[in-house]
């Protein structure tokens, strides 16, 4: 219970769809979703494999709480070896697709091989079929969505697809489900594109059961109340979405600006959650139309926006006048502060295009920011950019290049490589704000010290969602720590990393942890799943998952030397704000972190650690 106990194995090379029982021994050790799929991946895929080769696998995985009435119980993750990073990738998404897959009777779908011609996978309860996607290839996510609906005529089909970016090998291409929810990071969409799998369409009517329904309903109801009464999950997130952070992070001087040259953005207020709610002078309506929930979510932080029809970017593009997924904080940062742009409507357009074509807006925006710095420092010229004046703050450049990047045209082709390869190509690797090849997001580690260690040690490359110490360092959740000092951060990072691995393996959303601790999540898992899921067992599992991912990366060729930050963050002091004069103290934190993890000085888990965790 909790699990459907069934996985679907799709071999694209052979064109087969085969059900098989879920390995329950592994489920008991790794729960589901992130943990369990990582176990499958590490067992089945050679870590040294080329991510874009047929030998890589792509796993769509739900958790035991996916599809249940637990708040936020609608998540799924895509696990693979990342195209952008070459490290383990695990990209988590909401919307309705994951719950639908679970409802169709599947815990996960393992996609292997490579199709000769483009295909899409149709799953209707037990029945799974690979269908020709010839006419879908070359289409956007949105058009693909419409066409699959046209073909199958089931309004309740839920679809996850790649757009042109995934087809064109944009290394930060993502997989978009429900039109604007995304398994966003590390280039999972490029892996899907390389497999010539255009989309997965699912309809599920079988339902999800839990082990102890009465206890489950009682405890989930009780925990929903905590979310409702919490200031962040009950008010901040529904009202402003993650964009509640823009002004906050700017104020504390941790908003990476202009490729992290600055840590505060003078235009932050114009691109903030508050700004999205302000009526526009042109049409009197705000950018934000409403908030939206993902499946089962009682927080409802999702942004749904409508672009100003009179804005020059969309004036002649009525197809962008409808409501769709609006700016989340990371996106607004990447395509706003990091590029020095403060045009909310143009940024919303770029966000729409990222959703439409399946691109990670964080990596896209941060890569564009790196390119702008390359341009301003003279490393590239208009000759390279195809005539685009690639200065910070140039809205036209954002609009043109978001389209070009998705389509693999012009200078967009270069941006599609991601900032690491782009900056290396033009001889300025230090301008790439990446760790393990992945662009870091919207928190400057000079102003939030813990995020430096978070980025450096994240198993999927720089990422805030592996240990969101912002919660503690900025918001005081579960308790306030000083963002400007490194002390205590290694233990904080480790604890957050392990706990996050648990949440990501459950089917729940990490955002619940603004209000919940593992103490709140544990009884929900315990009621849903057979077996005794104690807090200790879950924490050990989180640590096991973290080490398993680490082992994959080490075997893939990463070493402790890759647990580093871009030089700028550790050498160039913050130029303004509360963190003025500070750099990130990674060197101080990292050895302590390794020790806490039970790793040697090279960052490798010791045999004792592996044994303790049963690895």
């Amino acid at each position, binding site marked *: 219970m909790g699990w459907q106990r069934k996985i679907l194995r799709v071999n694209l090379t052979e064109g087969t769809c085969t059900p098989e029982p879920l390995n329950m021994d592994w489920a008991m050790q790794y729960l589901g979703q992130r943990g369990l799929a990582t176990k499958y991946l590490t067992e089945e895929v050679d870590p040294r494999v080329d991510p874009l080769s047929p030998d890589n696998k792509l796993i769509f995985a739900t958790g035991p709480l996916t*599809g*249940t*009435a637990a*708040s936020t119980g609608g998540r799924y993750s895509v696990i693979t070896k990342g195209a952008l990073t070459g490290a383990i990738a695990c990209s988590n998404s909401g919307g*309705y697709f994951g*719950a639908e897959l679970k*409802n169709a009777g599947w815990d996960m779908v393992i996609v292997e091989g490579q199709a000769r011609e483009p295909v899409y996978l149709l799953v209707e309860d037990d029945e799974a079929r690979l269908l020709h996607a010839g006419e879908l290839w070359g289409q956007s996510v949105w058009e693909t969505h419409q066409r699959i609906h046209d073909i199958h005529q089931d309004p309740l089909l839920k679809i996850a697809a790649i757009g042109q970016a995934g087809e064109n090998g944009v290394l930060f291409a993502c997989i978009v489900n429900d*039109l604007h929810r995304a398994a966003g990071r590390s280039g999972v969409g490029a892996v899907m594109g390389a497999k010539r799998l255009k989309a997965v369409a699912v309809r*599920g*009517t*079988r*339902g*999800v*059961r*839990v082990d102890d*329904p009465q206890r489950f*309903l009682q405890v989930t*109801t009780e925990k*929903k109340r905590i979310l*409702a009464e919490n200031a962040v999950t009950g008010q901040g997130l*529904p009202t402003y979405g993650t964009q509640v952070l823009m002004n906050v992070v700017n104020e504390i001087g941790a908003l990476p600006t202009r490729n992290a040259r600055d840590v505060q953005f003078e235009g932050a207020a114009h691109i903030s959650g508050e700004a999205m709610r302000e009526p526009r002078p042109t049409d009197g309506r705000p950018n934000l*139309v*409403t*908030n*939206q*929930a*993902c*499946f*089962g*979510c*009682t927080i*409802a932080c*999702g942004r*749904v926006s*409508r672009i100003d029809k009179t804005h020059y970017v969309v004036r002649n593009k009525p197809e962008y006048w*409808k*409501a*769709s997924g609006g700016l989340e904080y990371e996106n607004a940062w990447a395509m706003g502060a990091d590029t020095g742009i403060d045009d909310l409507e143009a940024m919303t357009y770029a966000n729409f295009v990222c959703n439409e074509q399946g691109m990670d807006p964080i990596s896209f925006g941060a890569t564009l920011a790196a390119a702008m710095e390359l341009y301003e420092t003279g490393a590239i010229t208009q000759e390279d950019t195809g005539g685009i004046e690639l200065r910070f703050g140039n809205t036209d450049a954002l609009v043109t290049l978001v389209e070009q990047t998705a389509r693999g045209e012009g200078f967009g082709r270069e941006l599609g490589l991601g900032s690491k390869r782009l900056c290396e190509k033009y001889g300025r690797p230090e301008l790439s704000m990446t760790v393990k090849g992945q662009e870091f997001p919207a928190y400057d580690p000079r102003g939030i010290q813990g995020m430096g260690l978070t980025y450096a040690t994240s198993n999927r490359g720089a990422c805030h969602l592996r240990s969101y110490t912002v919660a503690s360092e900025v918001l005081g959740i579960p308790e306030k720590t000083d963002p400007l000092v490194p002390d205590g951060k290694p233990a904080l990072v480790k604890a957050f990393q392990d706990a996050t691995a648990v949440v990501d393996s459950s089917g729940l959303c990490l955002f619940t942890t603004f209000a919940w601790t593992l103490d709140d999540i544990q009884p929900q898992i315990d009621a849903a799943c057979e077996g005794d899921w104690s807090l200790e067992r879950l924490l050990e599992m989180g640590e096991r998952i973290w080490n398993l991912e680490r082992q994959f990366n080490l075997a893939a060729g990463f070493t402790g030397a890759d647990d580093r930050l871009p030089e700028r963050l550790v050498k160039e002091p913050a130029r303004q704000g509360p963190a003025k004069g500070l750099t990130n103290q990674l060197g101080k934190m990292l050895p302590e972190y390794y020790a806490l993890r039970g790793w040697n000085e090279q960052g490798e888990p010791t045999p004792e650690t592996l044994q303790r965790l049963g690895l």
Partner: protein
Amino acid sequence: MLKALSIVPDKCTGCMQCELACSYEHEGVFNPARSRIRVFHFHDEARYVPYTCTQCAEAWCQLACPVEAIQINPHTGAKEVIENLCVGCKVCTIACPFGTVNYNQATGKVIKCDLCGGDPACARYCPTGAITYVDADLTAYERMRMWAARTDTQAQASA
């Protein structure tokens, strides 16, 4: 005073908790496909509309049933399907112009909202107050009923 479901689409976030609650209440499983209430998603307009039986006064479903298997619960006013009387003929599913009576292939019976006997799970689980169970006055749903009367071929009061 009888109570009625009041549905205010403006407050709905599309979270589907009502469908989960309904399917669990009636079928013991979390399964939106088995819910008596459905949330329609109008993506391009950013509208989410929970939708279920209005328990209309002169119920088409009840009138059309050839075996009196749809009866009024005197405590709630709900039109309930009496399972052991329903023969599965489905006439009610086409007679109801709201499409809120549906056939359940698994049981061979029709299913519809029964207000959970007076404590509707959808309202209880709705996190935003989009669905509430309130004294039957001029709720949003009441307006839908008025609309129903307006487009009714069944009976139009004549001057």
